[in-house]
Every structure is written in C-alpha cells, then in structure tokens.
C-alpha cells in the first residue's frame, strides 16, 4: 500500500511538473512571438519608437524568465533565441529594416519550434 501511495504521489508530481513546464514554455513563447510580431509590424510601418518598445518587451521577458526556462528547455535553444532578440534590438537602434525583418522571421520560426516541440501532440510523441 505504501509503495502504491508513493507511486501515485510520484506520478502526480511528474505529470504536474510536465503540465507546468509545458504551460510556462508555451506562455513564454507566445509572449515573445507577440512582441516580435508587433515589432515587425511597427518596422514595416516605419514606427521605430514602437518597434523599440516591443523588442524591449521581448528582451525583458528573456531577462526575467530565461533562468526558470533553462531548467526545462535546452540551454542552447534559449541562448540562440536570446542572441537573435539582441540582434533585432541592435537593428532597431540603427533603423536597419531589412536585417530587423529577416532576423525577426528567423526568430519567429525558432520560437514556434520551441513552443511546438513541448506540446503533447501525436507527431511529437512519435
């Protein structure tokens, strides 16, 4: 009976942790995705101030959440994405629209992969 209770507690713990990590990763990715998409829209509209505001929001999200995120996402994936955010920020500062849009497109792809890879879908399981 004791073993069964320990097993049930362990399974609950593991499942709970899985749900938490998935939700945290997905919410983080959604936040970054929204900020970067808004930044790209602002760049296309030539509103550099708004673009700066959005990319700074993405940077803030990375600064605040990357330490927790590193506990359950491959460190390399996070540092790569963070690096691209910094590149976009630099491009916004220099008002280099082409670099900004191309880097943002690549970042959106990375973020989507990161978010999708943790979802409980049949393709991910298989």
């Amino acid at each position: 009976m004791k073993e069964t209770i320990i097993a049930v507690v362990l399974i609950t713990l593991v499942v709970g942790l899985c749900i938490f990590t998935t939700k945290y990763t997905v919410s983080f990715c959604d936040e970054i995705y929204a900020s970067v998409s808004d930044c790209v829209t602002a760049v296309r509209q030539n509103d550099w101030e708004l673009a700066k505001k959005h990319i700074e929001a993405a940077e803030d999200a990375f600064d605040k959440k990357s330490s927790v995120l590193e506990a359950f996402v491959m460190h390399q994936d996070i540092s790569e994405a963070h690096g691209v955010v910094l590149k976009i920020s630099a491009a916004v500062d220099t008002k280099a629209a082409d670099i900004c849009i191309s880097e943002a497109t690549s970042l959106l792809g990375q973020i989507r992969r990161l978010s999708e890879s943790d979802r409980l879908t049949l393709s991910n399981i298989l």
Partner: protein
Amino acid sequence: MTVSFARTVILYLLIIFALRAMGKRQVGELSPSEFVITLLASELATIPMQNSGTPLIYGIMPILALLALEMLISSLFLKSRRIRKIAVGKTSILIENGKINQPEMRRLRLTLDELLEELRLKGFIDINLVKYAILESNGELSVFPFSKDQPATREDIGKKDDSTFLPHTIITDGVLIRSEIKNLNKTEKWVYNELSKKGIASYKDVFLMQADENGRVCIIPKEKKK
C-alpha cells in the same frame, strides 16, 4: 566543473533513491522489467550528467516516471497473477521426472549444451541425477535431484533437531546496543556478569559480543593498540 559535480551528486542521490525504492533485490535476482528499468535509469542519468547544456530535469523526470511506473506495476503484480505472468513470464519446467522437456526447450530457444552447462554450474555432472530442472522467471535454473541422490538430513540419520537461533549483537566495537539486550529478554546486569566471567571490566573493551536464545555467548575483546 562545479556544476558538473553538483549535477552528479543530485543524479547519484536520485539513482540511489530509485534503486532503494525499487526494493532490496540484487542484480541477479531482478525480474526482466526491473532489470530493464535499472539499465534505463542509469543511462538516463548520464545524459544531463555529461552535458551541462541539458536541463537536469531531462534526466530526473524520466527516472521518476520509470520509478513510479515500476512501483505501480509491482503493486499490480501482487494483486493480479495474470498481469505478473504477462510482464514477468512464467517458470518453465525443462526436466520433469528425469525427462527433458524438448518442446519447452525449443520454445525457449535453449540448446542442450546450455542446459548441461547450467546443470554443471549447479553441481550436477550427470543429467540422470536430475528429477526436476525449472527455469525461473528471473533466468535462474532451479535443480532438484531424485530423492535417492539427495544428501541425508539430520532426521534421515536419526539425530534430534538442534534448533538454531539468530545471534543478537549486544556490543559492537565498544558500543552497547540496548535494544538488542531487550530483544534477547536480558538485562544490562546480565551483560556485565558475562563480561566479568571473561575478566572484562567495561563493554568499551569489547570488540564484539553476541548471544542467542540458547544461551550461547561469544565475546571478542578489543586488541590493544601497539
């Protein structure tokens, strides 16, 4: 480097906890599922141990999941014989009443050489001496000779049963274990009496003292440091 060390300590403790929670059985006595889980757990622990870029949880989560599943399945084994049969397999009788069970050997893909080797390892050089040979679910072969070839027991030679009791360790390396005195239904005074019979003044001078319910006492004094 310190990160690697810290990760190794955490994973080591986790593996020890996992193996301890799985039970006290030794590697040779593990069931197929336990054996596979032991291998998997140790393999899973090495991934985050070697690569500090991999989150520790990638090792911890699957190990805990495996442990929990193993514990649940073990509980189910206790409740259902059918589930146990599916997961662990059943025992196979390879020799029955001295006759080799050839269909069973073919089913298990076991050669005669392998059977003879196992019998030799069990101390049976002649297959004719074996009445039963049973392949247990953990892969061990149990061998039972014909009764005429079995060693004589005390009863066979008309000797009375000499009950053996488990000795209680009363003193170990100068430390008196009071709970064991109580288990033996004796008092501390009795211990001192036994020690004085051997000319020992204090239990601190005793390396080992054991006693059983038959009244047998063994006292080994500490050797003086040179």
